[in-house]
């Protein structure tokens, strides 16, 4: 029982990190229909910036993560305007390659400035302790991740489901042609969404460094997880990405704890079967359902 609850908590905190990073990717892939393999790079940039701020300049942890999010958002906006825009009209292969190229450049640049060794996780003292949660002592950091993830999920939900911008966004994901023909400024919407998604990724990379350790190949190593969240949840589906991220977090954790000899094998097998069964994911938006 204790082990079951531990798996649930560990999986949920891990899933929340996946969610924070991937939710931007699901919206950009669903809305802009671009295969974006560079999304992990923005998470990595956020993580690196926050770590440097904390370790070299002594900036407080929370402030550092927010600054990292802002920086990742700005870089994301620049990238959207310069290299992503020409990409929307191209096929999947150019999209794949250009975004891999971006990944490479980001990896090279970060390594050049910060160094080729893995970075230590920046967990401040107030999170680096155990809390009694009734049945066992549990790391405060992981609880923090669950709370922050839940909070962000709620905020993103408010924006998407309750705001005018969100209504337009949903309309554009469901029917891009229609959105354009009723005179929405779709390209501005793309930029704003992209900035938001990258900022979230940067934030996720920074706060989640204790779960997804920062190292030079971070952008590629965890990319598969982010993409799986998107594909399993259904591209462009906010709820889908939350469900998928938590499910993947829990299943992956459970797999590693209970049948370590199979490791990630189980997860990929499930993803494979799921995509054969439902090619558009669990909760696809209307446009592809």
């Amino acid at each position: 029982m204790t082990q079951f609850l531990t798996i649930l908590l560990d999986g949920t905190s891990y899933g929340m990190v996946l969610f924070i990073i991937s939710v931007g990717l699901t919206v950009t892939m669903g809305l802009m229909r671009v295969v974006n393999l560079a999304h992990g790079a923005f998470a990595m940039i956020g993580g690196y910036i926050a770590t440097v701020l904390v370790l070299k300049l002594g900036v407080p942890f929370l402030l550092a993560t927010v600054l990292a999010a802002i920086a990742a958002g700005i870089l994301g906006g620049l990238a959207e305007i310069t290299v992503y825009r020409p990409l929307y009209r191209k096929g999947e292969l150019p999209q794949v390659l250009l975004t891999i190229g971006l990944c490479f450049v980001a990896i090279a640049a970060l390594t050049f400035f910060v160094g080729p060794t893995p970075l230590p996780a920046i967990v401040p003292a107030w999170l680096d302790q155990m809390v009694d949660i009734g049945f066992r002592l549990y790391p405060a950091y992981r609880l923090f991740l669950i709370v922050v993830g839940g909070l962000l999920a709620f905020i993103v939900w408010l924006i998407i489901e309750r705001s005018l911008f969100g209504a337009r966004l949903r309309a554009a994901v469901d029917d891009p042609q229609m959105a354009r023909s009723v005179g929405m400024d779709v390209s501005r919407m793309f930029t704003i969404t992209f900035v938001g998604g990258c900022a979230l990724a940067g934030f996720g990379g920074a706060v989640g460094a204790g779960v997804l350790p920062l190292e030079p190949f971070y952008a590629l190593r965890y990319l598969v997880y982010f993409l799986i969240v998107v594909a399993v949840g259904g591209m462009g589906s906010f709820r889908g990405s939350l469900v998928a991220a938590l499910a993947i977090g829990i299943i992956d954790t459970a797999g590693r704890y209970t049948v370590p000899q199979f490791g990630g094998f189980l997860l990929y097998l499930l993803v494979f079967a799921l995509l054969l069964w439902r090619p558009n994911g669990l909760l696809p938006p209307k446009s592809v359902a």
Partner: protein
Amino acid sequence: MTPITQNPPAAVPAQSFRPSMLWHALPWALAIGIYFIADGYHGLGTNIMIWILFAVSLDLALGYGGIITLGHAAFFGAGAYCAGIFAIHVNNDPLLGLLVATLFAGLLGFITGMLILHTRGETLLMLTLAIAALLYEAANHARWLTGGDDGLSGIRVAPVLGLFRFDLWGKTAYLYTLSVLFVWFVIAFFVVRSPFGRSLDGIRQNAKRMRAIGTPVWWRLVAMYALSAAMAGTAGALMAQTTRIVGLSSLELLTSGVVAVMLVLGGERRLYGAFIGATIYVIVQDLAGAISPFIWMFVIGFLLIVIVLFFEGGLMGIIDDVVNRLKGRGRKDQRS
């Protein structure tokens, strides 16, 4: 008005020889020439040719067939592990090992292709990724067979045809790889010009059109995918036999990415694009990597962005443009 006749014309024009066909000899002449002058670089040359073979295999599936994949390393790695394990446990004859690895990878491509080629776009991309990841995890955990993350070592390969031993300088490996590459290249060259290859080019452009003329689209994609997988398997097997070690990295996402990068760098759907792309990639990696492993990542990443945004035909496309400009005519259809 005369009704349209449906009788095919009897006379089929004969293929005439054109001097420009002699260009096809160039890469092979170069490769043989390099063999004699490049002492100390035969290992590098072998490595380049293996990547060329791998990139050509991707060109068949992705370039000609339009099968969008980020998991081609699955077949490269499968071929490599199969050849290595076969040499250690069964028989260390190189040609036999090559054949077994090729068939194994081809079969794997056939089976997975049947499963996934109903889908398209991002879903297909994810499925290819998942297959490669599955194999990676399988190889990682089957330590008793693959050596896990230590890699598979202790591969010993008998002389080719019982005559030519693999020497320390890699000269035999060089010629061995060159011959295998040549055989596969000739096959690929014929395939893309055959009615089969043309129909795949049609599927890539417009599957609906091909269905309307009676093409069994799915079967044809599966066939091309299996062929391409077999070829990638050969490349992996060559890597195993010539370096005598197989690492998990042969199944990595990065490997799938790198081979796609090579292909697009050189230019897809022209076979020779893979030659140029792989050569430049490996050489840049070798030179820049000597300074810092991350400089080549920067150079390659930057090149990719520039190529995708400004030169869709890759380096071969640029060469074509220059040649045509020199000849004073516009760009003509690439595939004729």
